C-alpha cells in the first residue's frame, strides 16, 4: 500500500496544479501546457452515466464524444450527450443563489452570495428541527452521487425521510429482483438469439452500451426481436414482429407464455429443480392462464402465444424476456416484473451468454478468485438510519413495507404534508429532482408545497419545482465538477469517475460540495472522512494512487478480467486457469453453480414463490392475473414515454435539444381522430377525474385506436425556461397518486376521455 507518503503527493497534483489527463498526455507528448486537451469524464444529460470525453481548446469546451477507453462506448454519444455543450454555455442557466422575496411560486427573488444562502438554509433547517423535529424535513434526489450524499446528510441531520426517483421509475423491477433473486440482474442483448420486448424502448430511452448491443442484435438478420407495445415505437420498427398489445396487459401475455411452457414441459427442468423454489405452486396457479384466456385481455391471438412460446424455448438459453427500465405502466407492475423475471428463469438463461446475469463487481470477482485482485472502495457517504418512523412507512410497516426505506414512495408525500399524518412535515430539500414534471398529480403536489415552511432546490435551471422554493442553489453542471469514484460493474468489474472538464463558469458548486459545507455549518459532519473532492477520492480509493491516476486520466478503470458467466463452462474454465484458487468452487458440471444456493433471498435460492410477500399481500407471492385495468372505465388510455432527444424533466430547455423537439402533440389513431372530428394539429381536451388538459393532436397510424401517447417532460410551467415554457402537455397532470401494490410504483397509464375545445 502506497498510502502514507504518496497520498500527500497525490493531493498536491489533484488540488494545486491543473492536472490534465488527456490523449496527448497519455502518449507522452508535451500536452500538459497545450491549449488543446481531452478530458475523460461521465455524462449526465440523462441517468445512464455514459463514459465520455470532452475536448477543450483554450479553456472552451468544443466537443463531447464517447470515451473510447470504455470498449462498449467507443466514441459514440447520443444527441443529448453531444448537446451538453449547449447546456453548459446556455445563458438561461442559473448562475447565482436566489432567495424568495414574493409569495411562494411567484418567481420573485433576491440574488445572494452562496455563503448567505447556506447560512440561511442552516438557520432554517435548525429552526425546523427544533420546532417540529428533524423528521419534518424531506430530502429527495435522483439516484447517483448527489443522492448518496443527500441521504448521508439527511440521516446525519436526523431525518428518515429520504426519497430517490425510484418509485417514479425502476422500483417494480428492483423489487422483483430483490424478492426473486436477491440482487439486480443485467441482460446480454448482443449475444441473445431471441428477445421478447415489452416496451423497453432502448432506441428512445438511450443508454449507449445497451442501445448499441440492442442495435447490433436487432439489425442482425439471423436474430429475432418481437416487440409488444400499444404504440409503433422505434423499437417496434426494428422488430421482426410487432404486437400492439392493449395497454396494461403485458402480464396476461407473460402468464399465458408461462402456462404454455409448463403445460408442454418446455422449460429448463434441471435448472428449475436445482436452483428454484415454488415451481409446483406456480404450476397450479397458472392452470387457467391459457392462450385463449389472454386473447380478450391483450388483443393477441392464442396461436401467437403458442408459436412464440415454442420459438423462445427453441432459442433458450440464448433468449431474453426483457423487463424494461422505467417500468411504471400499470397497477400490475410488480406482478408483471416478477412474471417476466420468472419467464427468464424457466428458460434457464441465468448466467448464460445471451441470457441474464449478475453484475460482476470487484466483491464478486474477489470472492470467486479468493484474492484481492480488484480494488474495492471505502464508503464515502456514511449513513446510519435515524431510528424514526418514515412518513410513508417504507420498509417499516403498512402498504409500503416492501419498499426500500432508502428510496421511499414519492406519491405519498402530498397527502402526508396536507394531512399532517403521520406527523408534521414542514421542509423539503431537493437536488437534481423535478417532481412537478416527473411525478403524478403535480397540481396536488403544488398545493402541498404551499403548506411547507421551507423548500430548497438545487438545480442548473430555474425549473418548475425550483419556482416553488425559498432558496434556489445554482448547481455546477456535470462538466464543471469533480465527483467520487462510482462502481459501474457489468460483465466485468468497472469503476468510473466524473472529472471536471473546465472550472465552473459562474463559480457554482456541486451538490456534494454544497451538502458538505452545510453538514459542517449544522455540526453534523463528524462521520465524513473528507472535506474536499480530492480527499473524498483518496478516501474511497483507500489511498491507491495508481488506481486513481487511471481514473483521472481515463475516466474509467477496468482490470483485464475475462468475461465470466457462472454457468458457461468455457468461461469458468478460463477463469480457473487465470485464478487457480477458484477451482475450489467448481461444481460437477464445471460451473460456479454454488452461487445459486447462496443468493440473498430468504431461502438462498431463486424464489418463484415468495413467502414473505404472500404473508402480507395475500395472492401476491406468485405471479397472477391482477391489477391489469388501466382504463378506470374511460374509453381511452393515455400512455407516455421517453424520446431520444429529451430526458425526463431535465433537457427540454437545452438549446440544441429544444430546437430538435420543442413540443409533444398527442399521438392519436386516425379512426379515433375522425370520431372526435379532429384534424392534424387541432386542439382538444384530454380529461379524467383528476384533470382536464388542453392538448394538440398528432394523428398517426402508429398507435392503437383505444390508446393515446405523449412524450414526457413537456408542458413546463416555469417562465425562466424561456424556450420550453408553456409548450406541450405535461401528462403527469392526468395521473393519480395511487401506487402499484407491493412495490409502490407510480402508474403512468391512465384512463381518459377526449372532448372538443
Amino acid at each position, binding site marked *: 500500500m502506497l498510502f502514507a507518503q504518496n497520498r500527500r503527493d497525490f493531493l498536491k497534483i489533484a488540488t494545486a496544479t491543473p492536472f490534465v489527463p488527456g490523449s496527448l498526455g497519455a502518449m507522452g507528448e508535451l500536452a500538459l501546457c497545450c491549449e488543446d486537451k481531452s478530458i475523460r469524464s461521465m455524462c449526465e444529460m440523462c441517468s445512464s452515466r455514459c463514459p465520455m470525453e470532452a475536448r477543450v481548446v483554450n479553456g472552451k469546451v*468544443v*466537443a*463531447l*464524444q*464517447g470515451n473510447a477507453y470504455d470498449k462498449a462506448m*467507443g*466514441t*459514440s*454519444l*447520443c*444527441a443529448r*450527450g*453531444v*448537446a451538453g*455543450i449547449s447546456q453548459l454555455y446556455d445563458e438561461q442557466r442559473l448562475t447565482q443563489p436566489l432567495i424568495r422575496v414574493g409569495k411562494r411560486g411567484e418567481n420573485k427573488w433576491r440574488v445572494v452570495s452562496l455563503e448567505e444562502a447556506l447560512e440561511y438554509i442552516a438557520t432554517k433547517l435548525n429552526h425546523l428541527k427544533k420546532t417540529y423535529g428533524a423528521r419534518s424535513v424531506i430530502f429527495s434526489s435522483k439516484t447517483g452521487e448527489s443522492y448518496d450524499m443527500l441521504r448521508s446528510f439527511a440521516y446525519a441531520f436526523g431525518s428518515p425521510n429520504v426519497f430517490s426517483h425510484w418509485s417514479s421509475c425502476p422500483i417494480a423491477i428492483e423489487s422483483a429482483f430483490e424478492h426473486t433473486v436477491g440482487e439486480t440482474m443485467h441482460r446480454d442483448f448482443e449475444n441473445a438469439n431471441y428477445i421478447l420486448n415489452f416496451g423497453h424502448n432502448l*432506441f*428512445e430511452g*438511450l443508454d*449507449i452500451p445497451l*442501445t*448499441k448491443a440492442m*442495435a*447490433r442484435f*436487432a*439489425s442482425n*438478420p439471423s436474430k429475432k*426481436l418481437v416487440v409488444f407495445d400499444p404504440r*409503433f415505437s*422505434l423499437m*417496434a*420498427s*426494428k*422488430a*421482426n414482429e*410487432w404486437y*400492439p398489445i392493449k395497454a396494461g396487459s403485458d402480464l396476461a401475455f407473460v402468464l399465458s407464455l408461462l402456462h404454455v411452457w409448463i403445460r408442454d414441459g418446455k422449460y429448463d427442468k434441471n435448472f428449475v429443480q436445482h436452483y428454484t423454489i415454488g415451481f409446483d405452486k406456480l404450476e397450479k396457479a397458472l392452470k387457467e392462464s391459457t392462450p385463449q384466456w389472454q386473447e380478450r385481455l391483450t388483443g393477441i391471438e392464442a396461436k401467437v402465444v403458442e408459436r412464440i412460446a415454442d420459438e423462445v424455448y427453441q432459442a433458450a438459453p440464448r433468449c431474453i424476456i426483457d423487463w424494461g427500465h422505467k417500468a411504471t405502466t400499470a397497477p400490475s407492475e410488480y406482478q408483471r416484473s416478477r412474471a417476466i423475471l420468472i419467464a427468464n428463469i424457466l428458460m434457464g438463461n441465468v448466467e448464460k451468454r445471451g441470457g441474464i446475469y449478475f453484475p460482476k463487481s470487484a466483491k464478486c470477482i474477489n470472492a470467486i478468485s479468493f484474492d484481492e485482485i480488484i480494488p474495492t472502495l471505502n464508503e464515502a457517504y456514511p449513513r446510519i438510519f435515524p431510528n424514526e418512523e418514515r412518513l410513508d412507512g417504507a420498509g417499516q410497516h403498512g402498504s409500503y413495507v416492501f419498499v426500500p426505506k432508502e428510496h421511499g414512495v414519492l406519491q405519498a408525500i402530498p397527502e402526508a404534508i396536507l394531512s399532517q399524518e403521520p406527523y408534521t412535515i414542514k421542509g423539503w430539500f431537493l437536488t437534481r429532482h423535478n417532481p412537478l414534471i416527473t411525478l403524478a398529480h403535480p397540481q396536488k403536489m403544488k398545493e402541498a408545497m404551499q403548506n411547507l415552511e421551507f423548500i430548497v432546490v438545487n438545480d442548473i435551471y430555474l425549473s418548475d419545482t425550483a419556482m416553488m422554493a425559498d432558496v434556489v442553489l445554482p448547481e455546477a453542471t456535470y462538466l464543471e465538477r469533480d465527483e467520487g469514484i462510482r462502481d459501474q460493474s457489468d460483465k466485468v468489474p468497472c469503476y468510473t469517475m466524473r472529472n471536471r472538464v473546465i472550472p465552473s463558469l459562474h463559480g457554482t458548486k456541486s451538490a456534494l460540495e454544497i451538502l458538505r459545507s452545510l453538514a459542517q455549518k449544522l455540526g453534523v459532519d463528524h462521520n465524513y472522512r473528507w472535506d474536499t473532492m480530492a480527499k473524498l477520492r483518496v478516501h474511497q480509493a483507500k489511498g491507491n494512487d495508481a488506481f486513481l491516476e487511471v481514473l483521472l486520466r481515463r475516466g474509467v478503470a477496468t482490470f483485464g478480467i475475462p468475461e465470466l458467466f457462472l454457468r458457461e463452462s468455457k468461461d469458468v474454465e478460463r477463469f480457473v486457469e487465470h485464478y487457480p484458487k477458484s477451482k475450489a468452487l467448481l461444481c460437477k458440471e464445471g460451473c460456479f453453480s454454488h452461487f445459486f444456493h447462496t443468493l440473498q433471498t430468504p431461502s438462498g435460492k431463486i424464489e418463484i414463490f415468495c413467502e414473505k410477500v404472500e404473508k402480507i399481500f395475500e395472492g401476491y407471492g406468485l405471479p397472477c392475473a391482477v391489477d391489469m385495468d388501466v382504463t378506470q372505465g374511460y374509453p381511452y388510455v393515455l400512455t407516455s414515454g421517453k424520446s*431520444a*432527444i429529451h430526458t425526463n424533466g431535465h433537457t427540454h430547455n437545452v*438549446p*440544441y*435539444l429544444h*430546437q*430538435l423537439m420543442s413540443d409533444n402533440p398527442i399521438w392519436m*389513431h386516425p379512426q379515433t381522430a375522425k370520431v372526435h372530428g379532429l384534424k392534424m394539429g387541432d386542439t382538444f381536451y384530454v380529461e379524467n377525474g383528476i384533470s382536464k388538459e388542453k392538448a394538440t393532436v398528432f394523428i*398517426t*397510424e*402508429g*398507435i*392503437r*385506436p383505444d390508446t393515446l401517447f405523449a412524450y414526457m417532460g413537456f408542458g413546463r410551467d416555469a417562465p425562466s425556461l424561456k424556450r420550453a415554457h408553456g409548450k406541450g402537455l405535461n401528462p403527469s397532470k392526468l395521473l393519480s397518486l395511487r401506487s402499484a401494490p407491493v412495490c409502490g410504483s407510480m402508474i403512468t397509464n391512465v384512463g381518459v376521455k377526449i372532448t372538443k375545445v
Partner: protein
Amino acid sequence: MGKAYRLLYDENACIGCQACSVACRVEHGVPEDFFRLQVRMELKGVFPRLGMSYERMACVMCEDAPCVSVCPTFASFQDKDGLVHIDERVCITCKYCILACPYHARFINPLKNVVEKCDFCYESRVSKALLPVCVSICPTEALMFGDMNEHDSLVYETSHKEALIFPKAHLKTKPKVAFLPKRKGMKS
C-alpha cells in the same frame, strides 16, 4: 493515387436519434434551424401493418455533381479526391446550386451569407486522418467511412458483401454515399 472515399449508411442500425445531426452542428457551428445533416423517419402502412423508413439527408458527394456544373463563379468545386466543396470567398449566394441539388443538401448560412453543406468534415477531421464526426459519434455504428482503394477497409468489405442502394441512382450523379436498405419489418 487519390482517395475513393465512401460513406455507408446502414438503415438497419440507424435509430433516428439525431446524435449525428447535433454533433455536426457542434463541429461546424451550423446556425439554429438549419441542418447540414438530419435523419428523417417516415411511418408507412396502415395499422397494424406498419413500417418505418430511416433516411440520412445530407450531401452525397456526387461524382457527377450538378451543383458544380451550374455554379457561375466556380465556388462549388471538386477536389483531387472528388469531394465537393464550396469556396466561401467566391460564393455569391445565387442559389443555382441549391436548386440544382437533387438531394436538398444545401442552404444559405444567414450568419456568413454563403451556401453551406456537408463536406464529410474534410478540413476539420478527414484531412487529419479522423473520421467524419457523424460516423464517430453514431450510437449504433450505423455509419461507415473509408477509402474504397483500400481493400481491407470496412467500407470496401461491406460494399462487396451487401446490396447497396445509391440515392436517386437514376439521376446518374454517382454518389459517394450509399445505403444498406433494411432487412426487417415492412418494406417501404
